[in-house]
């Protein structure tokens, strides 16, 4: 919607708004920083949830991501969206967490139980997946290799280009394209198996 509207400095309106908030946060304005958090909190949490696999871990990763943003706010280029930077930190934090826990939280697909029930009134437009299909999707995602999972989620959840995903993951575009392709096919096979088990 407002993406097409250019701001005073030629930037799209949301980016210009974000840039102003980042500039204020760099000067120590905590309210401006909190507005940046508000802009991205849901997306960062959702990405962390699907990368890490549990609500508790997603909470920890989201907090850690925004704390790192506050710590590094001086290094952020306010002329560009802070989104890719946040996704990079989220992916890295999830990877660190996964190494720490050695995937101890990974449970078989059939045993997976949602840790936080969704608020039924919070999804009036069908924006959120239903709990059952989300559970199966997340369990299948956790079976993918770490980099393939991250590449697929960054591409499909955040709508980033192959080049942007490659930059975040520190890989080449060709590698990322291959990772995304493999992840799609593996996820489909895992979904197929899940359905066979259910039936």
């Amino acid at each position, binding site marked *: 919607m407002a993406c097409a509207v250019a701001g005073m400095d030629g930037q799209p309106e949301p980016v210009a708004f974000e840039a102003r908030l980042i500039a204020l946060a760099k000067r120590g304005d*905590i309210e401006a*920083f*909190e507005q940046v*958090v*508000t802009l991205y*909190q*849901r997306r960062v*949490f*959702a990405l962390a*949830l*699907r990368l890490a696999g549990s*609500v508790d871990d*997603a*909470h920890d990763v*989201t*907090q850690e991501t*925004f*704390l790192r943003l*506050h710590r590094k706010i001086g290094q952020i280029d306010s002329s560009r969206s802070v989104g890719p930077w946040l996704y990079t930190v989220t992916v890295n934090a999830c990877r660190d967490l996964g190494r720490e826990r050695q995937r101890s939280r990974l449970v078989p697909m059939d045993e997976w139980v*949602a*840790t*936080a*029930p*969704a*608020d039924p009134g*919070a*999804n009036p437009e069908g*924006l*959120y*997946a*239903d*709990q059952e*299909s*989300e559970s199966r*999707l*997340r369990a299948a995602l956790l079976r993918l290799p770490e980099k393939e999972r991250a590449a*697929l*989620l960054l*591409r*499909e*959840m955040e*709508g980033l280009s*192959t080049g942007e995903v490659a930059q975040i993951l520190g890989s080449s575009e060709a590698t990322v*394209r291959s990772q*995304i*392709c*493999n992840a*799609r*096919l593996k*996820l*489909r096979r895992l*979904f197929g198996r899940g359905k066979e088990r259910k039936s």
Partner: protein
Amino acid sequence: MSCPEFEERIALYAGGDLALEDVRRIEDHLRSCPACAELARLLEHDRVSLATQPPEAASVDYAAMRLQIRRRITQRSRARKLLPALLAAASVLLMLRVAMLRRQPKPVAPPPQIAKVEQPVQQAQVPPVLPARAKPRRIAKQRPQLTQQPGLTLEAAMRMLEDLESPPPPAGSDSPVEIRIATRDPNVTIVLLPETKGDFQ
């Protein structure tokens, strides 16, 4: 069952990652292969599922999360403010310690002659030596201490040594020492008397 040789390209096609000339070929194949068309449809469905937000994202208390983040930022900024003060205090303490060490006079090593003179003075404070006559063994042990008395000449030391080796008779007895040896015969006793110059008692 989809065609294995087409699977990869179908996955790329589903995500819009396929080159234009390949797109036409895949679309031609999908029109003729129902299994591959089904795969393409399911992959598109998965993409929609992935793009949809997880339901838990709707039930998170983001205000509480922001508050928590704010608290942690405040804690860290307090710690940051304290850190220079702590470092300054530590450096001041270190400097004071160094200064104290520098002010302390260095112990001067006395020349060897002075050491020889001072040593007897210290030894003079040793408790007085017990009488030599009462316990000769102890006297023998303490003899070196006597020689270390201040102002003790070699002659005086020699005199003291002679006195110790030949102790005078016990106080109160003026008679000379005599040794009586009993024999088997009770009527015979051998008496040894010290020899004196001139007369015989």
